[in-house]
């Protein structure tokens, strides 16, 4: 065997082995993996698109601003808004894709994936689910959306002020629906109201004429809808088509475009977190302007929440890069608790010890296909 042949083989072998011998060299340019556990198919797929749009814009902005030394990339897993699919997706994200940070939505999915996030010490951030028991699920599970108890606390006095005291609840049979039922059951009487009927529907239910008949019998002043996705739109149509003329009310899930565009949704009143896109901070105005330019529509609550979730990661990772520390769940959490206040869409956001972001709540009404803040 001649000398040059050995040299070529040695060179080739060294080149192939280099990334393994010095993993830091390979990692230095590897992107940060932002996992997403969103419904990308099925009756709740509309949310997946809304969530992803907000996250993608935040990545674009971070790249444009050269916030981080390494790029970010989204690794999507379709949950279909089902907890089983969520756990499968989360397990793959942490074990196979080595996700640095995971975005999640929907109460049932969030509750299912939180233990996996806890075991893997990988941060999971919710920007779409509002079940009140999502607070404090794990040190590695954060919320960038005000949870349902904050929405109902703000909403019940508003309803009483409008003399809407007898409330009937149509709620989906899942942890979110059960949580809203519990809140209305305890909070309405304290404010002088009454839960005159509660009507649970399975997640797969599509016929709401018979439910409307039962709702009508309870003689409510308003009907609170606690569902999401295509089903909440079907409930609204089912109620209106079947003679329910009293106000329909609900929570932030009603802010999706297909609901606001429905003629039957005219006058629907719901709560959401407060955003002022016209005034407010530079971050907020840039988000609103660029979102409209990129997607051709005004941003909604969910777009902003998942933008904030990714921006929060970029801000935390920037701090860690400056320290020379590894970007992992433990260090992200340590930095969150040290910094606490961040410049996000909507203004200065503050996080508590549980990783929950505080936010103001506003009451909205759907008028002419648009969401109009009314209180």
């Amino acid at each position, binding site marked *: 065997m001649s000398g040059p042949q050995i040299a070529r083989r040695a060179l080739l072998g060294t080149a192939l082995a280099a990334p393994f011998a010095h993993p830091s060299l390979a990692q230095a340019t590897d992107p940060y993996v932002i996992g997403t556990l969103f419904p990308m*198919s099925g009756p709740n797929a*509309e949310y997946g698109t809304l969530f992803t749009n907000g996250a993608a814009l935040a990545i674009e902005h971070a790249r444009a601003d050269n916030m981080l030394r390494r790029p970010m990339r989204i690794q999507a897993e379709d949950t279909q808004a089902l907890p089983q699919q969520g756990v499968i997706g989360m397990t793959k994200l942490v074990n196979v894709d080595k996700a640095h940070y995971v975005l999640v939505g929907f109460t049932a999915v969030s509750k299912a994936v939180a233990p996996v996030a806890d075991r893997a010490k990988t941060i999971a951030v919710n920007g779409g689910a509002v079940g009140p028991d999502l607070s404090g699920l794990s040190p590695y599970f954060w919320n960038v959306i005000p949870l349902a108890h904050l929405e109902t606390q703000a909403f019940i006095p508003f309803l009483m002020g409008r003399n809407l005291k007898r409330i009937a609840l149509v709620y989906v049979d899942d942890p979110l629906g059960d949580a809203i039922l519990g809140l209305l059951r305890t909070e309405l009487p304290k404010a002088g109201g009454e839960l005159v009927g509660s009507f649970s529907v*399975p997640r797969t239910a599509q016929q709401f*004429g*018979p*439910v409307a008949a039962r709702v009508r019998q309870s003689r409510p002043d308003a009907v609170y809808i606690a569902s999401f996705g295509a089903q909440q739109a079907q409930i609204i149509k089912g109620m209106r088509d*079947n003679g329910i003329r009293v106000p329909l009310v609900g929570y932030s899930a009603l802010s999706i475009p297909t609901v606001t565009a429905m*003629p*039957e949704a005219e006058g629907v009143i719901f709560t959401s977190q407060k955003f002022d896109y016209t005034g407010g901070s530079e971050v907020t105005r840039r988000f609103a302007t660029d979102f409209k330019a990129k997607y051709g529509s005004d941003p909604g609550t969910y777009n902003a929440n998942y933008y904030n979730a990714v921006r929060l990661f970029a801000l935390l990772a920037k701090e860690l890069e400056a320290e020379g520390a590894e970007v992992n769940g433990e260090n992200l959490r340590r930095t969150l608790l040290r910094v606490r206040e961040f410049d996000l869409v909507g203004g200065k956001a503050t996080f508590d010890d549980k990783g929950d972001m505080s936010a103001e709540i506003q009451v909205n009404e759907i008028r002419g296909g648009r969401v109009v803040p009314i209180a």
Partner: protein
Amino acid sequence: MLFLQLLLQGLQTGALYALTAAGFALIFGATRIFHFAHGATFAIAGYVFLYFWNAGQPWPGALAAIAAAVVFGLGMERFVYRPIQRHEGSFFTVFVAAFGVAVVVQNLIGMIAGRGFASVDTPLSMANEVLPDVFLAPIFWIAIAVAIVLFVALSAFLTRTHAGVGLRALAQNPDLLRAYGLSSNRLSMLAFALGSAMAAPAAILTAMTTGLNEAVGHHVMLISMAATIVGGVGSLRGAALAGLMLGVAESVALQFVDTQWAEGVSFLVLFAFIIFRPSGIFGVAQTR
């Protein structure tokens, strides 16, 4: 009055279930192909109608919906099921192929028409108080009338025409059919065309009442399968009657049970039939 209200709503829902289930039963009864993509046929017809409705063309939209359903059904028969059967594919192979197509159609609808809820905005679905505390929409009468007319027409076709008798014969003895000079392939295509066309009116009426989403086909398939089993496998009138019965059962049940159990009642009926009368309402018990 609640009972009357629930009964009327159950009849409306049941009429739509009956139309869809009868289409599935016709295909399954004649060809013994478990056409799981029947739900996809329903979704395609609904969205085609929606497209034309939004363009201000409801009547051409209805015709286009029927045409789209028939073309899809024929395409499945010609390009999916027939090649599988040519290679003597098992029942399970057919099921998996149909399931795969249904998933692809669902995703295509999501990509083309959007992933949210979609419905037709029409005064026909707006109920008015016809009796104290009883609300009825004009679409109730349309659903009942469409179901009756189509079943009468289909029954006449199956019993009084050469092709109709051939379809019934196809289910019983395809080999003998060939001996009489009839083409089982052509009759199979006829079964798919008719069965798929039956889904279109139900899809149009569903777009007007409960609305559509990309996953609407799965629910339709569940009901169609349940109705086919309850009605008696291979029996068209059995599937239609069972569809009507399931619609009424899931609505009237709310007089007695919590709203949570509405869908569960349909499947309780199904279980009851499987246990106590496995051959269904009009099915013939098989001996081995």
